[in-house]
């Protein structure tokens, strides 16, 4: 059984998202100089933060995979990166919209978070092609883990380098020198981060359990119908598991 606790997680996530939504639109104050568009902040920043954290967490899973050889860790690492990539794109798009609305450009180079976010995306965008170009599932898993460990270390290091290379031209809403966020905004912001993180975790949990289930079905079919009756998997970037060998992991 792979669905344990999924329902509870889904419900909590749903509730958190609904609450965030309500708070953002009905409670959080309207920003004085950016107006309504500023509300994208509650989507963009949490998504960006969760994405970056997720890449680092995926590296942790990858280390666990290399240490234990248990392919479930590779599956976790893969799924985390997969969803983080999607969040990464959402972050880039919402950031762009925000930039267009507030500065009139789709892209600016002097926002270090933004630039490093793009570079991180360019690096992790190669994760799937890398996996896809390795056939043997064991090797694919191992190589992907090596990549994701490097990637995990890359995220903060890259951020340091990019941040140092750009000035602080634009006002920051959060963690800036001039007083920071108003209390009500900060509150909503924290709630938003929590619910985006929950959303992330839920999607990851769903993907993991769906993958595990389909492997199990496959293994059962192979056992029932014989190995040759089941169509071969073919090349895939997703982790696969050979399950029909006695004692195999």
């Amino acid at each position, binding site marked *: 059984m792979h669905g344990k606790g999924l329902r509870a997680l889904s419900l909590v996530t749903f509730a958190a998202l609904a609450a965030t939504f309500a708070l953002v639109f009905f409670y959080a104050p309207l920003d004085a100089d950016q107006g309504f568009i500023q509300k994208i902040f509650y989507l963009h920043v949490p998504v960006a933060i969760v994405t970056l954290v997720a890449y680092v967490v995926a590296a942790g899973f990858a280390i666990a995979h*290399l240490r234990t050889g248990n392919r479930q860790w590779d599956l976790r690492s893969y799924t985390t990166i997969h969803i983080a990539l999607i969040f990464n794109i959402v972050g880039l798009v919402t950031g762009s919209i925000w930039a267009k609305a507030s500065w009139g450009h789709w892209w600016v180079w002097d926002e270090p978070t933004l630039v490093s976010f793009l*570079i991180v995306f*360019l*690096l992790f965008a*190669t994760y799937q*092609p*890398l996996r896809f*170009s*390795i*056939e043997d599932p*064991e*090797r694919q898993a*191992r*190589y992907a*883990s*090596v*990549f994701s*460990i*490097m990637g995990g*270390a*890359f995220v903060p*290091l*890259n951020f*340091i*380098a*990019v941040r*140092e*290379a750009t000035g602080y031209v634009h006002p920051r809403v959060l963690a800036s020198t001039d007083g920071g966020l108003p209390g009500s905004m900060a509150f909503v912001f924290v709630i938003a981060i929590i619910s985006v993180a929950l959303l992330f975790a839920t999607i990851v949990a769903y993907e993991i359990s769906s993958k595990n289930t389909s492997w199990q079905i496959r293994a059962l079919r192979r056992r029932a119908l014989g190995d040759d009756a089941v169509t071969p998997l073919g090349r895939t970037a997703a982790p696969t598991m050979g399950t029909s060998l006695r004692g195999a992991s």
Partner: protein
Amino acid sequence: MRPSLALLRKDLLLERRAPESVPAMLLFSLTTFVLFHFGIGRDEVTGSLAAGVLLVTLLFAAILGINRLFVSEHEEGGFDAVLMAPIDRTAFFFAKAGALFVFLVLVEIVAMAGFSILLLGVSPWPTLPGLILVLVLLNIALSTVGTLVSALAIQTRARDLIVPLVGLPMLVPALIAAARACAPLFAAGGPGSIPGKWLLVLGLYDLVFGLLAYAVFEFLLED
């Protein structure tokens, strides 16, 4: 150390027997300088533009060398025979990173000469000490990360794509740091001093990624 040396020697022998990587990287760099000259329509470059052109070119040239680093091992299964020898697998790492380092130094010597003649708007001599320091730090980054990426790519079916795709972004922080460190060296008014901050970032990159690459390398050699 002995096996590392034997491996390194073999790589240098292969390169001498069929000189490929070094002359190719060299010619590539010189051609790229010419391309830049026409592309950006400047006769001379100084400051950050000079640092950028030089380092972007070296980075692309390094990618060429990284691409070929494990090719000879792959053909005809020669690697398997080496894997069966009673040597520590990290010996490969040192041998390959060493070979790449040597290649890069050779390329940089000539490329730097070409760059000074073709594009650089200031005298290269006063910049030398600082430049050497930055390039050594950069070469460590290129050769450790490059060795890892090369080993990663060689077992895939699309080596020549995986190497630039994974290698370029991975090396962006090193490039940024090196370019920023070099920029004052090429300042139009005479070389300024290298910002210590950037040497630190570059050194940090070397340390973190060098150690990491070394640590995870052997997982790439296993079945």
